[in-house]
């Protein structure tokens, strides 16, 4: 048995600012994970379908347009609908502090705002992985 952690980095919504998503994809690759990157302007439907086909453990959503309160919960809803709520969702981008509790209540496990050291993201993934293994 030779399991690898697989992570989908996806950009929902209409903004084209993909620098952050590409940065995180590259950094997670360098941390030894298998990262699937699908580019900008993905619908929540496409993201969830991709996550299921790729059998990922995590989805990282990146959004800078301000539509996170709509689009992030839509992803977790669709995962539930497809019986794939075991996939852990986290988010990043320009997200105001006051929106974070709402997003967490919708099943987004963590939000990483600009300036977050990449180590924090890796620590998050490792701790979630461990929690999953202990289930």
């Amino acid at each position, binding site marked *: 048995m*030779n399991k*690898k952690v697989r992570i989908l980095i996806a950009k929902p919504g209409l903004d084209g600012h993909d620098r952050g998503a590409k940065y995180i994809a*590259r950094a997670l690759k360098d941390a*030894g994970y298998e990262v699937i990157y*699908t*580019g900008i302007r993905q619908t929540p439907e496409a993201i969830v379908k991709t996550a299921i*086909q*790729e059998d990922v453990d995590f989805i990282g959503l990146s959004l800078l347009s301000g539509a996170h309160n709509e689009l992030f919960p839509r992803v977790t809803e669709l995962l539930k609908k497809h019986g794939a709520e075991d996939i852990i969702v986290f988010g990043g981008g320009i997200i105001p502090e006051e929106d974070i509790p709402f997003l967490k209540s919708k099943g987004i496990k963590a939000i990483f705002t600009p300036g977050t050291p990449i180590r924090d993201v890796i620590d998050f993934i490792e701790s979630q992985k461990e929690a999953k293994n202990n289930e």
Partner: protein
Amino acid sequence: MNELVEGIISGNTRAISKAISLVENDGPDKIELLKEIHRYVGESVIIGITGPPGAGKSSLINVLIKEYRKQGKKVGILAIDPTSPFTGGALLGDRLRMQDHSTDENVFIRSLATRGHLGGISLATSDAVKILDAAGFEIILLETVGVGQAEIEIVEASDIVLLVLVPGYGDEIQVLKAGIIEIGDIYVINKADQMDATKLKTTIEYYLELSPDKNANHRKVVLTSSLTGSGVDSLIHEINSTYNFFRKKGILNERRKTRIRKEILRILNSRILESINQTFNGRNFDSSINKILNKKIDPYTIADSIFEEMKKRSQT
């Protein structure tokens, strides 16, 4: 297990993707699964797509999917990208070009990392193909990593190979070399909107004329542009006619037999290796190693005597 097999046969996306993970991770039920689905396998047309990095393999696949979907065919895609030899990580970016089809129920795309395997595909590729085959995908497109000159394992994994090249591949000498340039059943010159595409076409056609392979005159060179979509219908036409030619001439059957033969050998190899590891687990060969180091004996003689010992053990 039965549930997983039933899921695959009925084309359930989650079952297919879990099964691919199982073969990729070399999970405990892998062999049982592959045994179970064997009788459902052998119906798909397996098309290998290879070529150097940036030749436009993924974009070409995107337009091929579109054409096959127009014909109502179910399409499965395995896209392979390299694993870092330094960190073990991978950035799988092929499906970025194929996201037009991400919500189509009849298209299944899976990215695979090479996980240290050389040769252009991952070790699990052939087993993943079987899963897609059993799940009823009529067309399976296999995209290799961006290859250099010698990664040709795709030949064994597929029924028909498209070699995707772009203008600027190099001069005539590059085309005359051995390796990758020899493996195309169809040569696709992509980005044909760029300069010198027809020049490369002429060079390859000339090379094919010289080829000692008697079926070489059936190997076609097609100009395509994934950007404009031009040439894609003639590519599909060539794929169909080449496939039918292979079937009529028994070439397809030969290829599939070769694949099975190699598979048996591969399984045997890993079994034998396993049994060697089991037999000699924990033995460090220290005294033999010292003898070799001091030139008292050579490593071949030592290996022979160990091999003899193994044979004796397996007889008892």
